[in-house]
């Protein structure tokens, strides 16, 4: 059985090498956890795209089923679910997130 929302999410996840599902936008995050996730990605200096789940109720619910993960934000790198903001912070502090981005050959942004 295929769900249109699931397919839409799957396409988004596979089309963007670093994708963050979040509440709000990078400039105006609408929740502290999303804000923290953006700060981490900015510190890493990698290019990323975001999806504002507050603008799309189907994606807001669908993303939780897609990854079997109950909360937002959710980070995907090269099509793989990495974790929420707590895991991002743990990995960032351990240097593992930078390592993952390196290993996956993620594009750096000028800065």
């Amino acid at each position, binding site marked *: 059985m295929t769900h249109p929302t699931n397919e839409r999410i799957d396409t988004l996840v596979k089309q963007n090498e670093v994708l963050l599902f979040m509440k709000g936008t990078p400039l105006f995050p609408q929740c502290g956890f999303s804000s923290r996730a953006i700060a981490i990605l900015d510190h890493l200096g990698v290019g990323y795209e975001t999806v504002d789940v507050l603008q799309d109720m189907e994606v807001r619910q669908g993303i939780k089923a897609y990854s079997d*993960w*109950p909360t937002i934000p959710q980070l995907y790198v090269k099509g793989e679910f*990495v*974790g929420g903001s*707590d*895991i991002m912070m*743990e*990995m960032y502090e351990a240097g593992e997130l930078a390592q993952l981005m390196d290993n996956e050959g993620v594009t750096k942004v000028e800065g």
Partner: protein
Amino acid sequence: MPMTGEEIEDMITAAIPGAQVTMTDLAGDGDHWAAHVRSASFTGESRVAQHKRVYEALGGRMGGVLHALQLTTSVPESETLP
């Protein structure tokens, strides 16, 4: 009604026997919690898998009643591989 730290801790230890749970009230309002869960049973599991086990222990409350639970997990020192 927000969950108390004790309720959260009890649910986690009921599902993950022997887990050491440390609760921190981040905002002092009894609603914004940080939980650190340490369990030897996490050995060899990815962070995502460890967190999922704690979320399962909380029986679907995560993201609902528990909208602001910060979670970290670890394996006791003696259990980590050299």
